């Protein structure tokens, strides 16, 4: 690489500087040695409940390495729009894109994210870092997120829903944490004392990814699914099969018999609010809300909430839907900034950074953190169930038009929860519309006969 004066090779000052840095590396802690001194970079990120923990971890990175990071923080939808604008320009504004599982396919398929090996062929994903149903990889030839593809990103927040339940009420009633949907239903009904307390509070409102995200653990936990086999490129719509009907009937039944009277209008914030104010015995929401339940400024149920792996039907395993965040490096930024972004990711995946992240209130992406003694501490009681559930997490969508399908599910499921359609009408209607979307985009698709 040419030096500043245009000559190849290193100048005397560079050699002396490098020698000094190497000598300093021998006497400084590991952390300083892991991340190299690199150019300033910008991360575009959303304002989620876990953002504060990420910000603190970034500050730690800056302190330890001296590298500069600028955070561009936005609401959920705003972050996607800013990312689209940046990656579609000739020259990008953001170096590291914090991508949600819902739009990561759009970024991979669109060719907006640089494969990590093209920035540093020697980079290896830490074997302890969860690959989250292989969503960190992308096989451009097969147009699939599979382990055979190139490494495209590093997990930032492995969000999935967990079951939050009132441990104090369970103790009083002599109940044990539910493992199956049958147990959850029985326990929810037992603790259902409206209007003071609801057995379960569900997220039935229509939104960008609201009721559909709430429904995935039920759909997949009953052995259902939206498509036959996305990884194999088979997009036959299977939403309206028997498993789908059983799942939706169950979801509607517990809402009616043990749920909040206005489930169809409850979004995530209201569901969490019901738990924090003691009005819900169970909720199944994203794990990032964990820090709120023990926050004296926010919660009336401090130390009363326990966490469990999302239940499943007998004969199936738990199947929480991924709502995770991945860090991908934009293709259209200068090389030095790509290396800056990669340096941060390299540092972020270390066990020490992950533990600091957890202590700051974040959700670690490394299994090593879940094996650490920290996971035994009372305030991190969610770590064990999360560690147990993560290997079963399901990537619901592997194609860039996912938001169109989500939009169909949001409306159809919301109408079913509101009681304006039956489960069969909703499933048949949604399946037909999803088939239409996939056909229009020339996917290998098909549909099942309508449910009677």
């Amino acid at each position, binding site marked *: 690489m040419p030096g500043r004066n245009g000559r190849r090779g290193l100048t005397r000052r560079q050699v002396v500087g490098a020698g000094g840095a190497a000598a300093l590396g021998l006497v400084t802690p590991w952390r300083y040695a892991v991340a190299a001194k690199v150019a300033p970079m910008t991360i575009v990120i959303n304002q989620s409940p876990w953002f504060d923990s990420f910000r603190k971890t970034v500050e730690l990175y800056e302190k330890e390495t001296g590298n500069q990071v600028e955070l561009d923080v936005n609401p959920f939808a705003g972050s996607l729009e800013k990312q689209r604008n940046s990656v579609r320009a000739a020259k990008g504004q953001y170096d590291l894109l914090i991508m949600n599982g819902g739009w990561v396919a759009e970024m991979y398929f669109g060719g907006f994210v640089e494969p990590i090996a093209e920035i540093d062929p020697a980079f290896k994903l830490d074997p302890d870092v969860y690959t989250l149903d292989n969503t960190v990889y992308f096989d451009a030839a097969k147009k699939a997120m599979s382990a055979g593809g190139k490494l495209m990103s590093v997990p930032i927040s492995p969000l999935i829903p967990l079951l939050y339940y009132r441990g104090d009420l369970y103790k009083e009633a002599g109940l044990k944490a539910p493992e199956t949907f049958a147990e959850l239903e029985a326990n929810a009904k037992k603790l259902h004392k409206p209007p003071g307390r609801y057995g379960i509070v569900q997220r039935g*409102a229509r939104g960008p990814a609201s009721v559909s995200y709430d429904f995935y653990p039920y759909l997949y936990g009953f052995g259902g699914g939206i498509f036959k086999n996305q990884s194999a490129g088979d997009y036959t719509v299977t939403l309206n099969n028997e498993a789908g009907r059983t799942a939706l009937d169950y979801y509607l039944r517990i809402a009616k018999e043990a749920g909040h009277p*206005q489930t169809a209008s409850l979004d995530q914030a209201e569901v969490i609010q019901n738990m924090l104010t003691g009005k819900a015995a169970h909720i199944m929401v994203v794990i990032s809300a964990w820090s709120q339940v023990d926050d004296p400024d926010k919660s009336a149920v401090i130390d009363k909430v326990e966490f469990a792996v999302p239940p499943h039907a007998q004969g199936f395993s738990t199947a929480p839907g991924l709502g995770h965040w991945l860090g991908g490096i934009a293709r259209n930024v200068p090389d030095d900034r790509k290396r800056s972004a990669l340096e941060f990711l390299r540092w972020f995946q270390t066990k020490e950074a992950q533990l600091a992240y957890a202590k700051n209130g974040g959700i670690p992406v490394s299994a090593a953190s879940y094996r650490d003694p920290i996971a035994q501490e009372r305030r991190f009681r969610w770590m064990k169930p999360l560690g147990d559930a993560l290997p079963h997490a399901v990537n619901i969508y592997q194609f860039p038009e996912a*938001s169109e399908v989500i939009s169909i599910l949001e409306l159809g499921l919301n109408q079913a929860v509101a009681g304006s359609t039956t489960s069969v009408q909703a499933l048949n209607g949604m399946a037909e519309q999803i088939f239409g979307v996939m056909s229009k985009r020339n996917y290998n698709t098909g549909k099942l006969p309508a449910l009677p």
Partner: protein
Amino acid sequence: MKPIASAAAHVAAVEAEPSATVSQPTAADFARGLDERLWRWLTLSPALLLLLALSVLPLLNLFATSFFTVSWSGGHSSFTAAGLNNYRELAGDTLFRAGILNTVLFALFAVGGQMLCGFVLALLCTGVARGRLLYRTIFILPILVPGIVVGAIWKLLLNYDFGLVNQATALIGFDAVNWLGSANTALASVIFVDIWHWTPFCFLLFLAGLQSLPQDVYEAAKIDGASGWQELAYVTLPMMLPTIMVTFAFRLVLAFKVFDEVYLLTGGGPGTATQVMSFTLYQRFFREDQTGYGSAMSVAIIFMTCLLLSAAFAARGRMGAAR
């Protein structure tokens, strides 16, 4: 003869255009006129070009994009000709159809409510001799509140579990109502919030209109022995008609563009109960990134808005001609 007849004659006289004396133009007048017209066009042309660049070209671009399907691969966009498919699909779009119906309902009731409340408040304020400034300040407060804050205020007030409205109604024995979450009340709630937010706009325009009305017409009406209602019906309303129509047109266009209140309060739900056109467009264009289809939807919405405005102004023209 009706007692208000002479006042009505005054109104007609006030509204009548002064007739101009027309004389035959000479050749010199024609040449001077040509020069003036040329000079006028020359001086206007920079502004016209700017207007063309900022308004017409984006619209043309939108129109052109509406005939394509846009996709991305390898970091580059590709445009595939879609013919009229994007426009054909509009007819089968459940959300778009629901959006049209709800937008029309929203516009009719919200604008109607704002016009009525604004006019009544303006009339009351005009009749007040002391403290008019205070009343005026209080009445215009909601319009000063940013839309996002309006959303936060009413989301809290109308919350089913913790909202002040339900807590207040519970005190007098009513059951809690899911104002924003029930298909029966959600649209009405959003309309109510919009009326609360935008009535001051109508109020201000009406107040300005009322204060500029010539007082001699009212004096004539009084001399004729007109009652308060007759004064309102035969003097105030006819003279206020231009202001009312302009206010109506402004509000109608803004009501057709409603987005923030729906986005913040209901997200279009429950079901499609509060789905409005702008929100559907936001979903299709931005959230789902359907650039071509979203452009077609945009063109359709612009066309409908223009149609509506034309109808409103045609109605105004007819009313003016009838009088």
